[in-house]
């Protein structure tokens, strides 16, 4: 089957934001998302998952380019300044484009 091109937006941020983030990305057009627990280090120092206040999540959203941009813009405006947050975008191939 032919492969279609889509975007994978990955968001690494504070676990405390999970609920809010889910609401936001669904409102902005994400058809789904996947979350794993993570730990890490960045501008805001070490966040190593021992307990809630210092643990990260890693959220992935498969979507088209516009949705990815809309979500990224929203996140940068509302959360990037005040929260530990890292965003990146990857070009991916999918087989069932209608899903995303």
């Amino acid at each position, binding site marked *: 089957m032919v492969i279609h091109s889509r975007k994978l937006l990955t968001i690494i941020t*504070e676990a405390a934001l999970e609920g809010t983030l889910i609401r936001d990305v669904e409102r902005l057009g994400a058809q789904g998302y996947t979350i794993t627990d993570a730990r890490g280090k960045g501008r805001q120092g070490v966040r190593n998952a*021992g*307990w*809630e*206040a210092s*643990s990260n999540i890693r959220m992935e959203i498969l979507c088209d380019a516009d949705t990815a941009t809309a979500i990224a813009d929203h996140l940068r405006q509302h*959360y990037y*300044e*005040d*929260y530990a947050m890292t965003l990146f975008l990857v070009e991916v191939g999918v087989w069932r484009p209608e899903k995303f």
Partner: protein
Amino acid sequence: MDPIILFFVLGLGSGLLRSELRLPSAVYDFLSILLLLAIGLKGGIELAKQPFADLLPQMSAVLALGFLLPLVAYPVLRRVGRFKRADSASIAAHYGSVSVGTYAVAVAYLVNRQIYFEEHMPLLLVLLEIPAILVGIVLARGLSRQTKWGVVAHEVFLGKGIVLLMGGLLIGWIAGPAGTEAISPLFFDLFKGVLALFLLEMGILTAGQIGSLRRYGLFLLGFGMGMPVFSAVVGTALALLLGLSVGGTTMLAILAASASYIAVPAAMRISVPEANPTLSLAAALGVTFPFNVLLGIPLYHAMAVQAQAFWGG
């Protein structure tokens, strides 16, 4: 020395020596859940034994205390500490609220010495957790229309800690002493052992705060020890007014003196995100928690004994 304190010291030491020792986060959660439910249940069982109306004065007084303390802390942090508005408000909220872990250590301390205290303290604990959060938000934002109070209320009243404490309280209240007997091996017999493991992890977490503490300097260190002593004095005075026992006075002092490191950080992160969480955690967890656990509790107890001897009825 009480072995649970030694567990805290063990955690602290191995954290400072960078041992790889850590409790898995699921285990830490499990221990917290057990402690919160146990404390709630205990309080509820006692509530079942006395008329609720008698407690109303104490409850109102404690609510007032929760509004007062952050209002005292805020100007100190803003003027003397020279922190930004949001940071001052957030730290003030932490110190106006309470730490359940500290409370549990105080329970162990008093029980160990067979000192009576009013057993409905968990009810006061729950009440004291909340007002400081609201004060903190208002200090940071003013009474702005923008604040989503619905979201705030959800975060505050339906946060894990409050639900477990309140839930335990209600279950204990409804089921009473006889009803809860069958679950007491898990919640009450294991209490001190669970607390020991919890303090082991708290020691490790505390050690992890030393770095940020070094960065943010002396003021936090001073505030982290001065503020609880001040709050303990206020708590002691209030307890005298309310006619509490020596044990109850110690308890109210420790409630006032302890600083939240669970409920308030979570609430502030959502409601006042521009406040730097590292600052408040370094103070509450890196300074005030060990200070209270190691020195504060015996100090406040001594204070309660003196105060009751002079002014108590």
